[in-house]
């Protein structure tokens, strides 16, 4: 749905802010954390390409850790950061100084681990949403994220988030000392917010050419 040019513009903007989030995470984890957004997609759930994104798999079915927060006014929606639970534990261990590189079963995520995940999500989602605010020149108010452990079956995975019209999907990739943790940031947008974003990106492209 996004042209390559539109994707490049968005990626470039987001990577600057994601870089700042990475340095904050590095400080939390006391080790270098590289964070990048290698791929961006804009998905319309009612669009003709619906089966296509479903096949692409936003996240694998199974236990996932999902952090979500609302943001708004003119440009409004819900931002989510989703990790497979086993990978989330790697990040938590790194931040707690207990990084062993071993993945752990979802059942081993304890209450305090969720606090740590809340902070990680807070840092990342703040960066991403903050960037949208800057890009659109909009003041965006948002809450702190709520974190939950969810079991998503294969069927549920397909219907997850279907009530929203548009989703901007950022595939994130965290490189820790010995491990790579991949997650997705999903920004669910309503029609007007979606149009606003596309109009702004097109305007930037127009100014460049």
């Amino acid at each position, binding site marked *: 749905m996004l042209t390559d040019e539109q994707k490049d513009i968005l990626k470039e903007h987001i990577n600057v802010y994601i870089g700042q989030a990475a340095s904050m995470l590095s400080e939390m984890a006391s080790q270098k954390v590289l964070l990048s957004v290698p791929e961006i997609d804009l998905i319309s759930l009612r669009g003709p390409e619906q089966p296509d994104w479903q096949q692409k798999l936003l996240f694998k079915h199974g236990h996932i850790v999902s952090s979500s927060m609302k943001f708004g006014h003119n440009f409004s929606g819900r931002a989510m950061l989703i990790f497979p639970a086993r990978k989330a534990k790697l990040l938590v261990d790194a931040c707690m100084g207990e990084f062993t590189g071993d993945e752990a079963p979802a059942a081993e995520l304890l209450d305090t681990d969720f606090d740590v995940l809340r902070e990680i999500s807070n840092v990342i989602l*703040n960066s991403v949403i903050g960037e949208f605010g800057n890009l659109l020149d909009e003041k965006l108010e948002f809450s702190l*994220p709520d974190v939950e452990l969810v079991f998503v079956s294969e069927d549920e995975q397909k219907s997850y988030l279907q009530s929203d019209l548009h989703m901007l999907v950022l595939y994130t990739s965290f490189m820790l000392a010995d491990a790579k943790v991949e997650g997705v940031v999903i920004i669910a947008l309503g029609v007007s917010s979606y149009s606003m974003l596309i109009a702004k990106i097109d305007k930037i492209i127009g100014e460049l050419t």
Partner: protein
Amino acid sequence: MSFGDDLLHQLSIGLVIIDSNNTIRLWNRWMEKKTGFASADAEGQQLYVVSPRFGEDRYRKIIESVCVSRQGRFLAGAIHGALFAPEGEVTGVSGGRQNIQIEVIERSGKPMLLIQVMDVTGHYQKVQQMRSFIRTLESENDEMRQIEQTARSLALHDVLTGLPNRLSFNQHMKWTLHNLKYDKEIFAVVFLDIDGFKAVNDRFGHATGDEVLSETGRRLRGAVRGTDFVARLAGDEFTIILHGIKQKADVVTVAMKIAEQFRVPIHVKKDEISISCSFGISFFPDDGDSADVLMDKADQALYRVKRTGKNGFAIFGGQPERYML
């Protein structure tokens, strides 16, 4: 004190409000209780004076970033410890844990920072205890598994030769019969003993006799394929299960190879000990379809070899085959 102010002091979480100069404007009763700082002493002070950790570069940056971006920030006690030192502590890093939430609020049109503090020390300790309990359980479980594995291995192996013992042989036979009955495959049972082993013990002593048994086990194991099963039943008696036999004649080749193993004398220290062995062979399914019957038939074939001069092998039902050393 207004109703609203009174309410702030009744809350069971800590509330701190600082202005754009980092000066504390509100310090509620919960903060007084936890830190020992009276609100009269805290209010009007710079935040980092009352809580020195906020003077650290990383926390200064966080405060700045909340002010500039106006984005709320959550700090997990599991990572940061206690940013507001509990009473009696200087740094707040000796075990206290506080979850902290920092947000921008407007007061009389001026932006200020609201800092909410939740003490999670007790909870964190419980989680740590649980975690250490889980680790202890896991390590105990590993230890038990190790012990069980060793015990199982000892129960199923002959200590002297390291080969499977009689119990293991019986289990393997049972398993083989259960799995092969339906496949119509042939397998052979070899029952072997060392000729005149008693004389070896009498002449060279039991320690040397044990060495001979160990070496016999090693040579038998080396004579067959990895998929075949070699066990020591007792004393100088060994059994071999030869799997996946296509035709009975093939077993003669293996039998010759087994016999070949004893062509070279066994050296124990300075002694050179020449031994020979006799063995009988039975086949599944022609000679029987139970472990007892197959063993009995192989034993009968062995007995026939022993009776007719030892140092050879016989297939049940056939004439003893001779091999020369």
